[in-house]
């Protein structure tokens, strides 16, 4: 009998499994699909500290950033400590941006208008300046999830971390009031604890245990260009508007392009945000807006082609914070979901903190802001 069953083989589940196995626990990861087949497989691989307001999420992001750098030694998932450049359209925006950077207390360099070209030679002219965040990084998220599971299994013993794909969880096993495993379409799995790392579908998993965790989908489209032989864009580059959009409560469409090159060659143009449920229908106007904003940032992109677009469903909670920790309403059930568009970046810290609570240690961060029952009082 394993100590832990992790539901979800996305990047968050993979990190939970990796750190739990490292802590000496026997772990089974189950996923109804393949590894990284959900939101992880539809992301950009953002590991950002620059877009977070000071507070619990930034604390989580900073912890995670350091852990990603350690994990990068595992190799195999294209970790790039490339840094992020946030550019401001006007002096007023630059002032706000600089003010935020000061409050964040993260490493940054304020870049005057004339210095932007040193960072990004192909950037359009006319920006008032920007802020460079050296800690912003990127990973190939699918490979990251797969690698964490594989290396966890290799390093800590194969029996200790086992991946079971194509296994759908149908319900929970109980030992009195305690959650003591899962029932699946491939038989029951008894375990000391269960981690809900089902991402956008985390609310449904919680409901099977009879608890309410409000995780909802927010659709995001990403445009992918033809591959480039030589990098056109060196860092993650985005406008200050991205920072305000990330935390937005708007129901409607918001786009603010994040543009970046990848080791495989294509440029990714990301980050539309819409609340339309699980609707995959292509929205040409969204693609048009992303293209417009990308070309405004990098006019040289106008002559290059988009060859692909994909969408994913970012799991968000009403207060835009993830749910991390054991559920007092269902002891033995730990949640690790609802990371919205930041799941890749926040995965290692989430996994690390979950492993600490599973092992009975005091977590490095106060989990109160992320506690699963925080939505009860608002209902």
């Amino acid at each position, binding site marked *: 009998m394993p100590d832990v069953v992790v539901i979800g*083989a996305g990047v968050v589940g993979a990190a939970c499994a990796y750190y739990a196995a490292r802590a000496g626990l026997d772990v089974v990861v189950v996923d109804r*699909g*393949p*590894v*990284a*087949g959900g939101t992880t*497989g539809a992301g950009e691989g953002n590991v950002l500290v620059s877009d977070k307001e000071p507070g619990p999420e930034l604390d989580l992001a900073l912890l995670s950033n350091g852990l990603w750098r350690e994990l990068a030694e595992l190799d195999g998932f294209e970790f790039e400590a490339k840094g992020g450049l946030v550019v401001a359209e006007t002096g007023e925006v630059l002032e706000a941006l600089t003010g935020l950077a000061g409050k964040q207390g993260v490493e940054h360099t304020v870049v005057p208008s004339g210095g932007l070209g040193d960072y990004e030679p192909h950037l359009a002219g006319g920006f008032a300046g920007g802020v460079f965040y050296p800690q912003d990084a990127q990973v190939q998220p*699918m*490979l990251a999830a*797969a*690698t964490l*599971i*594989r290396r966890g299994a290799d390093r800590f013993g194969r029996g200790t971390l086992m*991946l079971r*794909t*194509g296994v759908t969880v149908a319900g929970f096993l109980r030992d009195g009031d305690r959650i003591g495993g899962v029932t699946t379409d491939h038989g029951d799995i008894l375990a000391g604890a269960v981690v809900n790392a089902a991402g956008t579908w985390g609310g449904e998993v919680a409901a099977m245990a009879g608890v309410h965790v409000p995780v909802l989908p927010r659709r995001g489209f990403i*445009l992918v*260009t*033809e*591959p480039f032989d030589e990098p056109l864009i060196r860092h993650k580059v985005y406008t200050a508007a991205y920072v305000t959009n990330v935390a937005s409560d708007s129901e409607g469409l918001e786009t603010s392009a994040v543009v970046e090159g990848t080791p*495989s060659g*294509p440029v990714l*143009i990301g980050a539309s945000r819409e609340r339309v449920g699980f609707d*995959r*229908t*292509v929205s*040409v106007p969204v*693609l*048009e807006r992303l*293209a*417009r904003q*990308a*070309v405004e940032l990098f006019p040289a*992109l*106008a*002559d*290059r*082609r*988009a*060859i*692909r*677009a*994909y969408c994913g469903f970012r799991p968000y909670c009403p207060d835009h914070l993830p749910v991390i920790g054991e559920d007092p309403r269902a002891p033995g059930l730990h949640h690790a979901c609802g990371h919205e568009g930041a799941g890749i970046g926040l995965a290692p810290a989430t996994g690390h903190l979950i492993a600490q609570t599973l092992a009975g240690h005091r977590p490095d961060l106060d989990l109160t802001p992320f506690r699963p029952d925080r939505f009860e009082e608002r209902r």
Partner: protein
Amino acid sequence: MKPLYDLAVIGAGPAGVAGALTASFAGLDVVLIDAAPRPGGQYFRHLPQGFNAQAPGALHHGLDGFTRQWETLRARADVLLGHKVWAVERAEGTVTVRCLEGDREERPRTVTARGLLIATGAHDRPLPFPGWDLPGVLTAGGAQALLKGNLVVAGRKVVVAGTGPFLLPVAAGLAEAGADVRGVYEANGRLGLARHPLLAAGKAGEALGYGASLARHRVPYRGRHAVIAAHGEGALTHVTVARLDSAWRPVSTRTVECDTLAYGYGFVPQLELPVQLGCATRADADGSPVVTVDGGLRTSVPGVYAAGESTGVGGAVLAEVEGRIAGRSAAADLGRRVPPLPRLSRRRDRLAAFAKALLEAYPVRPGWQGWLRDDTLVCRCEEVPLSAVREAQDLGAIDARSVKLLARPGMGWCQGRMCGYAVACLAGEDPAAPRRPIAQPIRLGDLAAPTRSPLEG
């Protein structure tokens, strides 16, 4: 040009032209759109004017009939050639077709219509094998396009290989045009279909004609043989031909010198547009996804019809019949009086049964996977070798999509059009209907610009 047509037809091959003409005769305002500068699709691909060909029919079976329909259609409907469709959308009963006009300028254009007939045909289905990306290795359809569309003979010493009856006209055409065709290697049984009673459906004569042509040029036609490797430094110089067992495992091999290989293992229907619209698909007799249609060629999306290879690979004659049925359905659904024509439906049923028999007689057998080596590229664009696919599976990829996410086959320029079938086979599943929100690459500058209708300059 009109702000709103009754019916937009995408594809100027036999299905699209017949469908557009039928709908036009039934009283609809029709616009026909095709990416190519000339009509015909792949099968009736036309030569450029510049050749002043006095006998273009020598390259095609049944060209005259198609040409008559085309000339009639041109006088009755609007025709937009050289328009690549990159996206279609449907909202409130109106279909918006987004095109790029011109082969290099690519001006964005939009066309709107109440109904849409998708007749986008198919492309070759290549299988990967060692050396398949050497210059000089072409798809059978590519060799055919060079000849029919450009009067260029694909090579001097040519080998034709793969499976299916399409290999015969390709080889015969090359031989007639002066190539030294060193052999036609059919991986299935050479006589696989001859015993089938449906061969009486009218194809026998055509097949006999190609056979006679090959015999006249002393071209050997061998069943249970395949090209399993291509060799050369920088360009093709010879191929390894294997005799196969019934599962396509090589039994014995020999070398054939050639500068060109034209090959194909069936066809892949082009489904990106119906998938964009949410049309339901089904697996055809060979496992390929095709659009699900009713007896009137209606898809699951109201006002959207499909005809020709997109409903199942069946050739030009079936495509034309389906186009006519779809055109009639579109007119009837928009309230035009269209008398029933059961004869047409019976003809379609007969031809479709024949097409299904063909797919069953010329399947792709699993033994081809044994032709690959660890370093054989599965994906040409992203240069993904077989070993990388296997590593992805080892990492937890249990389907084609997750193999793609981890190892990148299908992520490049062609978006899996060339390797999608092979990757699905390697992942142990039938190929899925392609989800490609961008059906043709589009410059970001064009995507960013407000699009114009063809009404505007």
